[in-house]
């Protein structure tokens, strides 16, 4: 859907943890990400827990930016809280991740989302996240 992810999110290399926005509407965003061997969040050929968390956060940021692409407001995105972040397995270098973020609530400048990360239809991680989307 959107090839130029750098136009959407505030993060820039080497801290970009999503490649493409595959689907997006008001409620849901889906991204893909191929883990490069030289990714800064790779350790011992595995994409780390922090990498997965950032991948979810950037999926949420890309979705929020896409939905407000016609407005002049450039929204930031800081993770404020993460709850029930469960990891079932860590992906390996060259794995292709599919990440889905569903918006479950909003309070002032804070968005609450549910994120899941999978690889080849196997669930790797899930979490609840609160993201500050003010400036």
């Amino acid at each position, binding site marked *: 859907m959107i090839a130029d992810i750098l136009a959407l999110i505030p993060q820039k290399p080497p801290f970009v*943890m999503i490649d493409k926005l595959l689907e997006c509407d008001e409620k849901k965003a889906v991204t893909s990400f191929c883990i490069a061997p030289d990714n800064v969040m790779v350790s011992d050929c595995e994409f*780390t827990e*922090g*990498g997965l968390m*950032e991948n979810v956060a950037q999926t949420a940021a890309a979705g929020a930016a896409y939905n407000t692409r016609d407005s002049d407001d450039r929204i930031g995105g*800081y993770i*404020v*809280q993460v*709850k029930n972040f*469960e990891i079932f397995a860590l992906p390996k270098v060259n794995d292709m991740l599919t990440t889905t973020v569903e918006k479950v609530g909003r309070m002032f400048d804070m968005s609450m989302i549910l994120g899941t990360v999978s690889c080849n239809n196997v669930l790797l991680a899930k979490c609840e996240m609160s993201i500050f989307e003010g400036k």
Partner: protein
Amino acid sequence: MLKIRLYSVIAVAHKDCNIVAEFIINKDDDIFKGHFPGQPVLPGACMLQILKEMTEAALNKKIRLKKADQMKFLALIDPSVNNTLKLDISYVLTEDDFKINAVMSSQSGPCFKFRGSFIVLKP
């Protein structure tokens, strides 16, 4: 590993299931060129990895996050302003995992709180 490239450890004390570590963030790491351009902020994702790496080093075990019940990011750390951080970790080892409570702080106060469990990986 983020150690060496992103941070260097100044001191570690490990006693009675408590680990206290002091470390310095390398403000020139490339990570800050992307997070964010012109506005360096230590990523929460890196705080979590620093916690994991410090715990692994102190226990001399390879571990993996099983579940973070709660992580709170309480303050933004700009490494050009605050580059000396402290990490307090307390843990309880059970049969198949270990539970951790941890707080990372700068001189201005806590920036990251963690409560959750890790599993110990077989060597």
